[in-house]
């Protein structure tokens, strides 16, 4: 398998072979994090900048740890401490950063397409760390990695995603990824949070959680995207929680080895109960662990070699 992509802008641009290649590579990189010496010299001399215009705990830390475990140097820039607040445009910021010769820039921005725009101006690799409600490719890759790790397969699984689908880049990227496999995808949420005409993609839509989780192998819970106005699409948080929040009794309808996923941050008591989040079916922290491995694989494939 050859890899000739410079950027990771979205799952939509990846072939099934490329997705599987990232997952297989991540499998080897995962072992590094389990060793006493959690470092390999693979990306020695490379520089990775994380440029985050939106808050993040997991993704930014995960990219930084991934880069450091590969011996790359990392610099983190967040909007609140950058010249963004002095009025510098994204393009100017990026071009100025590029003058310092980084090898990759991981960008998170509330504007969909921001990484795509940057990639046109930059020689460095651009990695989408989440662009508005559009895509979050490394999240979908780590979700697929976790599903494959827990189920030993992706094909043939019933996968249910519950929550604010319309505003979720995680849901979009996951749907793009899962559609390469022979999966049955069910999306569930209030009608106002389900994208129009999504059924035409061959996806099942349910407005009732009990029905949506019936025979599910994987249940992925999403939070309400308050920062994207998600709250305006529901009458109240309390009502949303009582109708769409995942509780222990729902799990009886799913397959008995169901796994519960959540990209974080969780709003406990709203979309997911404590019992489910901390229960035996939860793989939420495995997702975080796998995120480092998937991002190591991503960085290695994008900047590890001459393309």
């Amino acid at each position: 398998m050859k890899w000739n992509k410079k950027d990771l802008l979205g799952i939509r641009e990846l072939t099934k072979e490329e997705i599987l290649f990232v997952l297989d590579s991540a499998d080897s990189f995962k072992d590094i994090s389990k060793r006493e010496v959690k470092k390999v010299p693979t990306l020695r001399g490379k520089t990775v900048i994380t440029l985050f215009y939106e808050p993040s705990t997991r993704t930014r830390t995960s990219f930084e740890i991934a880069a450091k475990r590969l011996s790359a140097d990392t610099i983190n820039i967040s909007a609140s401490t950058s010249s963004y607040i002095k009025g510098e445009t994204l393009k100017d910021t990026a071009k100025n950063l590029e003058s310092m010769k980084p090898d990759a820039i991981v960008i998170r921005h509330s504007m969909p397409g921001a990484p795509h725009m940057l990639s046109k101006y930059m020689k460095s690799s651009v990695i989408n760390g989440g662009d508005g409600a559009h895509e979050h490719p490394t999240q979908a890759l780590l979700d697929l990695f976790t599903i494959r790790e827990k189920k030993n397969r992706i094909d043939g699984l019933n996968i249910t995603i519950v929550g604010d689908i319309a505003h979720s880049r995680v849901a979009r990227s996951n749907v793009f990824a899962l559609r390469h496999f022979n999966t049955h995808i069910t999306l569930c949420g209030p009608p106002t949070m389900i994208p129009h005409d999504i059924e035409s993609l061959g996806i099942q839509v349910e407005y009732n959680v009990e029905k949506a989780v019936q025979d599910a192998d994987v249940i992925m819970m999403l939070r309400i995207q308050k920062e994207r106005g998600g709250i305006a699409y529901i009458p109240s948080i309390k009502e949303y929680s009582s109708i769409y929040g995942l509780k222990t009794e729902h799990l009886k309808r799913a397959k008995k080895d169901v796994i519960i996923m959540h990209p974080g941050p969780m709003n406990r008591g709203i979309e997911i109960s404590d019992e489910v989040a901390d229960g035996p079916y939860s793989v939420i922290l495995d997702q975080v662990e796998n995120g480092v491995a998937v991002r190591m694989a991503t960085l290695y494939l994008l900047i590890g070699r001459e393309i």
Partner: protein
Amino acid sequence: MGKKTVSLLDKKAVDRTITRITHEILEKNKGYEDLCLIGIRTRGIYLAKRINDKIKVVEDIVLPLGILDITMYRDDIFKLKSPEVKKTDIPFDLNNMTIILIDDVMHTGRTTRAAIDAIMDLGRPKKIQLAVLVDRGDRELPMHPDYAGIFYNVSPEEAVLVRLREIDGKDEVIVVRT
């Protein structure tokens, strides 16, 4: 077109050579105490397994055996055509062990350098020794095998191919001239 092949070792010679290396390993280390075998992907794995089989016959013991993938430690990683990284699998404690590192062909010494660095990140062995089936000369680093099957000084227009039945269907070492 115009490719000529010369046989260096046939099936029987490959087996005899591995037998000799096995005995040399046991002789040099005065037995098998604290000894373990680590095969470098890909063909080093099968050579390591065969050496272990022969040790079983001679000493009636099976040594710990590990698999090493050196891709992440290579100094030419930026030029690799295939970016595939495979798993390293060393299911035992390396500390204070005498490691026999096993590879099919030794050439520049860069693979050995990468392998030693990879092992050092996994523990602190007492000793590392190197066994190869073919030493083709032309070193770029100060490395030397402790056990070599055959030495063949390869000219620039030649390439050495090691074939092992486990993955290539037959055992032989040949030189291909272009």
